[in-house]
């Protein structure tokens, strides 16, 4: 075997464990889901094997699924915008702080040490009728009766922001941390104010990080079902809740498979558009 051939094979040999894992744990299960989506659920809940387009027809033409999908994308978009608005100043502060950067980053990571479900449920103790916020307002005499703050779309978005904000901050931080601060000084020396230097130098250079954080927040937000289940009211369901209901409550795995593939296709298209214009490199940096 020539040296060239050996060198050409080496990356594949090194990659083979990872490729095998991806194939077995992602590609093969995904293929199962694709196959399932063409089966049918019988009246008893058993699956009827075959090639039927009924589930796809229902998923793609029924306005019920379309409306919930649009509502899901809207909630994910609002969450992403709120995360960006709240996350940018925090990331900027961390990136520009001198001595305590490590502590600030550690504080940012702290919520990940607690279960996501517990973090979500903690809002019940904060915003509930007898929760901390209402108790404070009552004790200060600002209100005479507790305010109903929970179980609506706003609390779903609040829960999602709570969950996703660290992802946004980390991505923006990575981007800001890579910008040479001398560039801002150079802009200032050329007559720009601090605000102008930020708007014309720092912000454009940090946009890839903002976009990467936005993509992560959007994709994760659009795929969640726990938050609306815990903090939402009767109507505040997201698309993943429909998948959960089809598979768990209705035992309709074929329809659930079609719905999950539909969500995957929408979010996948979004990732591809992002990759086409911005590339995945920034996202990898943020995740790393």
């Amino acid at each position, binding site marked *: 075997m020539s040296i060239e051939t050996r060198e050409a094979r080496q990356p594949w040999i090194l990659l083979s464990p990872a490729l095998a894992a991806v194939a077995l744990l992602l590609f093969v299960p995904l293929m199962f889901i694709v196959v399932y989506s063409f089966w049918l*659920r019988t*009246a*008893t*809940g*058993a699956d009827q094997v075959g090639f039927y387009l009924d589930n796809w027809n229902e998923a793609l033409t029924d306005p019920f699924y379309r409306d919930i999908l649009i509502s899901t994308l809207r909630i994910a978009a609002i969450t992403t915008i709120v995360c960006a608005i709240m996350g940018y100043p925090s990331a900027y502060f961390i990136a520009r702080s001198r001595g305590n950067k490590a502590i600030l980053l550690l504080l940012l990571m702290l919520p990940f040490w607690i279960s996501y479900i517990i973090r979500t449920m903690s809002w019940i103790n904060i915003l509930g009728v007898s929760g901390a916020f209402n108790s404070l307002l009552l004790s200060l005499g600002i209100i005479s009766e507790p305010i*109903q703050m*929970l179980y609506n779309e706003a609390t779903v978005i609040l829960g999602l922001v709570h969950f996703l904000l660290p992802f946004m901050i980390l991505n923006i931080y990575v981007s800001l941390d890579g910008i040479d601060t001398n560039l801002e000084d150079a802009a200032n020396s050329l007559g720009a104010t601090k605000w102008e230097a930020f708007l014309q130098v720092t912000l454009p250079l940090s946009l890839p990080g903002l976009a990467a954080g936005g993509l992560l927040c959007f994709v994760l937000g659009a795929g969640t079902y726990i938050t609306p289940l815990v903090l939402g009211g009767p109507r505040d369901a997201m698309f993943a809740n*429909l998948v959960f209901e089809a598979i768990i409550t209705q*035992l*309709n795995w074929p329809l659930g498979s079609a719905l999950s593939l539909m969500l995957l296709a929408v979010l996948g298209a979004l990732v591809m558009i992002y990759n086409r214009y911005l590339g995945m490199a920034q996202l990898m940096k943020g995740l790393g």
Partner: protein
Amino acid sequence: MTKKMDNTTRYERLRERYMNGDIDRRGFLGLIGAAGLAYGVQTPFAKYAHAATDQVRFDGWGGVVSEAFRKHAFDPYTEKTGIAVVDGTFGGGDEYLSRVKASQPGEYNIAHLSGVFDYARYHGLELTSELNEDNIPNLEFVIPKLVDVFRGVTDGKLSCVPYDYGTTGLAYNRKYVSDDQMQEIGAKILIDENLKGKIGGWSDWRTRMWYAALQTGQDPNGVTDEEAAWDAVRAHRDLALKYWTSGAELMSLLAEEEIYVTEGWSGRIYALQEQGHDIGYMDPPNGFGWQECLFVIKGSPMEACEELLNFMLAPETSIAVAEGQNYPPALDPTKVELGGKIPTLPAFDPTGTLSGLTFAKPDYWNGHEADWSKTFGRVQKGY
């Protein structure tokens, strides 16, 4: 000392039945002979079967119930038979069925299931097994009505043993809703506009339709005007603050006064009352009665499971579990002394006839399952 459910144990049981006069001498000797023949035929393969039954998996609702099972049934069972009990939990019957559907035969063995309709659903999916009732002598203590309804589903055979029963009735905060008001309004309290934003409800399509039937003056086991019932479900949805999805969430919403009225599980409401909350509980006429069972899934090691069921049905175990979970046991009060607490539990029937409870007809509810569960999914989201 450990003792497996082996041939020696079987012989001892048979001998005990013979000594008690349950079978005659001819029958006893005939069975011994048949057992010898069977043993001779199957011995080369028996070691493989025995080797496979070193553990039984049980799945239930967790919490105090699991603790009571562990203490009163699983540990003594393991001590006697040497077979370990792997104790798993689930959040709901639907979720568990999905797990079973995705599993290999024999992976899941015994489950603490709700409702006869679940039993019928498992039967429809060909997941039922066939119990040898001779191996479960404690079955004789169980209320016959509870057993018969399961037999009706599986052609006289059993794939489960009944274990406890309860109701899904109306729970209300007495600070805001009086007992008299409840007696007067009944199930319609859940669609009372004066309580808008303070009403809760279980996100279970059966319960929603059952109460919608009551609210529209229909028989829950024979809804004739479906549209009126769905309108009642919609009315409840528009007035409700939240659909709860677990017993813990139900208790939290009531205890924290997020909601003042909801339907609730009798045992959970009793637990709230025990904690000192002034929560009332009422079963309206035709209120939702149900029973739970210990179900053996097809592909399980039957003898080991039957032995475990016998441990779990033993009066001391059943009573301890019932006191832990606040649901009356399936034991017949005319045959077994149930102690002091159980007669005070909601839904308890001292006669053992359960004539005051209305149970869901499995054929009727399972016949509507595919359609109604899907429709409720849509109605719930504003459609």
